[in-house]
């Protein structure tokens, strides 16, 4: 169970997500349950990873059963103000063996971001989208738990040249 506070305009919503990668995702907005269907539309379509409801737009979110959510799972932050759509998280606990990207790198969908060793198996963690790396949150040798951020992408909408 993950809890988020999302501020849209002046109103704050409390959001609870049982499991961000389940299908459908069960979400409670201020206690009201919704089921959200996530559709994987291929990695080359950047729109697929862009949520319809962006925190930046001051409109009241209208949670409907078929809302799109990002394939990268949201990650809470202390302030609750962080962009929740553009963080690639560790899919399972393990150790980072190597990191293949740096801040400012343009990555393509499917490009290796880092290698995560879990249960003595090396797992290539690949970028689900095209984008520019805004921050690399891990370094080689780091131990990560499930859900820890690996890299953050720049805000959606900023297109690389």
């Amino acid at each position, binding site marked *: 169970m993950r809890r988020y506070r999302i501020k849209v305009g002046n109103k704050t919503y409390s959001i609870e997500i049982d499991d961000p990668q389940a299908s459908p995702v069960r979400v409670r907005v201020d206690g009201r349950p919704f089921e959200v269907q996530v559709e994987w539309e291929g990695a080359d379509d950047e729109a697929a990873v862009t949520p319809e409801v962006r925190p930046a737009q001051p409109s009241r979110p209208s949670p409907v059963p078929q809302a799109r959510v990002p394939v990268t799972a949201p990650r809470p932050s202390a302030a609750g103000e962080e962009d929740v759509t553009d963080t690639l998280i560790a899919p399972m*606990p393990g150790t980072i063996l190597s990191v293949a990207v740096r801040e400012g790198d343009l990555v393509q969908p499917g490009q290796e971001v880092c290698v995560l060793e879990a249960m003595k198996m090396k797992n290539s963690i690949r970028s689900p989208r095209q984008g520019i790396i805004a921050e690399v949150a891990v370094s080689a040798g780091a131990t990560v738990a499930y859900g820890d951020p690996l890299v953050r992408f720049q805000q959606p909408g900023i297109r690389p040249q």
Partner: protein
Amino acid sequence: MGWHNLLDLFSGLSHLTWGHLVMMAAGGLLIYLAIAREYEPMLLLPIGAGCILANLPGTGMLDEQGLFGILMKAGVDTELFPLLIFVGIGAMTDFGPLLENPRMVLLGAAGQFGIFGTLLLALLLRFNMNQAASIGIIGAIDGPTSIYVSSVLAPDLLGPISVAAYSYMSLVPIIQPPIMRLLTTRRERLIRMPYTSRPVSRLTRILFPITVTLLTGLLVPKASPLIGMLMLGNLLRESGVVERLVGASSNEIANVVTLLLGLTIGSTMTATRFLRLDTLLILILGIAAFALDTAAGLLFGKFLNLVTGGRFNPLIGAAGISAFPMSARVVQRVGQEEDFGNFLLMHAMGANTAGQIGSVMAGGVVLALLAG
């Protein structure tokens, strides 16, 4: 010194038959696979060496007082070697992924159904009941359990059965994926299953091996020696206070016994016992058993997917066998072929450790039913 003594020097050569040569070549093949292909080298290298040594005529090593005679009597006839190996496996196994996901136990059980399918096939091929059951156990790809069961039920088939179980262990990444692709749809393979983190307390980890041992002892007493040793090793590990015993079980004891067991198994591959049609049939039935176990696991995975409303990736079912961690890794790879962002590894590890327990239980059930 006369001519007679001089001829004694070459007695090996004069007793050499084509059967010896074929078996030495087979031993050489196992050694080649171990060294050049790294197919389970820890096991196949000693087995290959044992096979070559046992087929050298006139060495006396197979005699009751010879090296292999002593090892066979001390370690295999008494079932001592597989049991000691199980202490090491227990000390090396982290049941955490299973304890985080207890429903995976079901897959470890489902993966054993191929045993009974193979048993029926083997009966059709005129193996007797005890032999057929021993052959069925190959399907779980559990070397020590296969050796344990066949040394009780079908000692004459010990060589081919253990060679099959250990060789197929290294073929897991080749045999399983085609079956997995055949029996699942792309849509099913694409089902994502996020890691479900549930912290497992130290107390749970300590109570688990004790509880399993007690339950097994009461329900399937014949499985107790194997489960008891497996869980003893795990208790050592989880207790956190006997580092040296954990080290001894998982390194020194397991390595020494693996060497001795491998040699002894290899020594059973003599021309007269191995060069028979039965051996070929056992190798074929072993593959069938493995394929059936994989299929049973996958079908049960599909069933779980049905009852959970499409939230369970059936690929994980294929990991309900004993080959750890090869099978779990295969599940992860096949899942990622379809979607690189899908990480099934931890779930598959849970099913895989359940498969380890399941195959031992199945061995115990077979022994309980047949050994009387």
